[in-house]
């Protein structure tokens, strides 16, 4: 597709996005407004992530795209195809082989390494949005570090339900300053946000915001001393690869309550199976 520039966006737009990215990296967790463009896919389907990825890609990069941890979900396939067409970059499903990973809702199980970039698709970048709908107000609250409302919300959760009733998009504090929405990743993934050697970039297209967690940045999930943060998952091992430490999807297998649990990270699960790991429902080895 030679009609479009490399990675679709024109160079001026990429420069504008890169300036926002630099600012975001310089002020970890701060939401930088940027002039988000209309993309050929709908708002809410990863336009922010796509713009950030487009601004970061070079022809030498190897791209991995996941949605719900999987490389083969329809929207991941669609976004990967978009960059194959418009940038002609190499693509991979292996976390360790990718230089840029665009993700929706998960952080890969395989620890990220220096030089890798993880790009998150973000629907609502404002962690305070559902406590205060006005942008004018929330920006002021961030400026004044006025996060009492968030703690009151978490406290009320505990008072009412005995637990913090947020299981994904669990708010974090970045390097002791900004409260940040980590995008709708399950809170299981929250600990992986902190201290990683990779660069983490967040793009919200519709809401026109970019933010970042630079490598080796401290990211703390909000909690209370007597109700500490807990990274939870289904209490099972994977039925295909046997891993009992990875995040699991629950799959309904029949209409009589039958179910199985499998790794949401397809690359992680396949690598383990290739290495000989087996789970409860793995196909029996052929005896013949």
């Amino acid at each position, binding site marked *: 597709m030679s009609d*479009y520039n490399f990675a679709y966006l*024109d160079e001026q737009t990429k420069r504008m996005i890169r300036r926002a990215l630099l600012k975001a990296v310089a002020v970890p967790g701060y939401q930088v*407004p940027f*002039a*988000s*463009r*209309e*993309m*050929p896919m*709908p*708002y*809410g*389907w990863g*336009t922010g992530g796509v713009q950030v990825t487009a601004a970061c890609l070079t022809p030498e990069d190897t791209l991995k795209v996941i*949605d*719900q*941890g*999987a490389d*083969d*979900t*329809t*929207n*991941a*396939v*669609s976004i990967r*195809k978009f960059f194959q067409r418009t940038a002609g970059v190499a693509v991979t499903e292996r976390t360790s082989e990718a230089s840029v990973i665009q993700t929706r*809702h*998960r952080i890969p199980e395989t620890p990220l390494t220096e030089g890798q970039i993880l790009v998150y698709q973000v*629907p609502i970048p404002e962690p305070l949005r559902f406590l205060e709908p006005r*942008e*004018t107000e929330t920006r002021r609250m961030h400026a004044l570090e006025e996060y009492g409302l968030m703690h009151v919300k978490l406290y009320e959760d505990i008072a009412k*339900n*005995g*637990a913090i*009733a947020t*299981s*994904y*998009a669990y708010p974090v504090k970045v390097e002791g300053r900004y409260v940040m929405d980590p995008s*709708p990743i*399950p809170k*299981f993934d929250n600990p992986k946000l902190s201290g990683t050697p990779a660069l983490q970039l967040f793009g919200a297209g*519709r809401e*026109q*915001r970019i933010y970042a967690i630079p490598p080796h940045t401290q990211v703390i999930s909000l909690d209370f001393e007597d109700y500490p943060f807990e990274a*939870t*998952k*289904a209490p099972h091992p994977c*039925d295909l690869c046997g891993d009992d430490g990875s*995040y*699991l*999807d*629950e799959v309904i*297998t029949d209409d009589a309550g039958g179910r*199985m649990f*499998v790794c*949401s990270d*397809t690359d992680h*699960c396949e690598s383990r199976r290739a290495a000989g790991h087996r789970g409860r*429902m793995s*196909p029996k080895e052929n005896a013949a």
Partner: protein
Amino acid sequence: MYVAVKGGERAIDNAHAFLAEERRGDPAIPDLSVAQIRAQMTLAVNRVMAEGSLYDPDLAALAIKQARGDLIEAIFLIRAYRTTLPRIGHSRPVDTGAMACIRRISATFKDAPGGQILGPTFDYTHRLLDFKLAAEGEAPQAPTGAGLADKMPRITDFLNREGLIQDEPPGEDTPPDMTRAPMEYPAGRALRLQALTRGDEGFVLGMAYSTQRGYGRNHPFVGELRIGTVTVEMDIPELGFAIEIGEITLTECETVNQFMGSKTEPPQFTRGYGLVFGQTERKAISMALVDRALRWKELGEENEGAPAQDEEFVLSHADNIQATGFLEHIKLPHYVDFQSELELIRKVRGAAQAAARKEAAK
């Protein structure tokens, strides 16, 4: 035995092929040409141009064809195309006072210089299905009369001369461009009008209607509604002067709103303004009402807390491409988050049930 769902790529390709077939429909029926859509579905074309923010009837017609008549989808196609175009510069402000009108009406004066011109309007048609249209080949001809008046001065200028309407001095600043800078609030009137003119017709209509029903009422009269063509001129640096680069059709609506004065402003009439690509008068009138409602602060009016007075609320929800994208994204898989919610509900429910059992055992 569960097999991990593979084949997203093939599923997408097949879905696209199915879509293409469905779009074409029954091949026994002749293909609809883009020229036909442009010529005979003009009001749909106008809406796509207005909300797509791109004045190109041929592309709008193509988008409507490709979108199977789904106008929001067509607007989306135009917007996505529009962003790939370089921004060469901007035109001079168009002079709507010099518009070659095909329609011009005022609801505030029975007659005025230039006259009342109904033009091609549905207004006084009886909404009876015309079964003759089901038969093909009709080409109705309208009678032609004497030419229109050369000049059609603005109705509001008559009020302005008496000082009865709040003055609207020309601004010298280059207005911001909402497609090139992130939206920030408070937005200012120029930016508000930009957002409204490309806003969803249904949303802007609903907001305007809410003001008429009392949520931020502002007593509007259609001072003037005019539809016609204006020339677009652009300064060419190499030439040192402006040249005409084309003609576009616009709909302009100025409302005259009753205003009893405030702490800062004397009693006078005030204005709401709507300007939209193409013949799109429902949208232009709606825009003028919403514009007027949003001006409460500069006029020193009371904020009643009505939705149409709330700039951030109106502007952040007026864009149908943003709205439809975000709304429809909930079709995408969310099973990772849902799994997290399942675990949480099981945990909280388990704790609640254990507590209830303990209570019952007492």
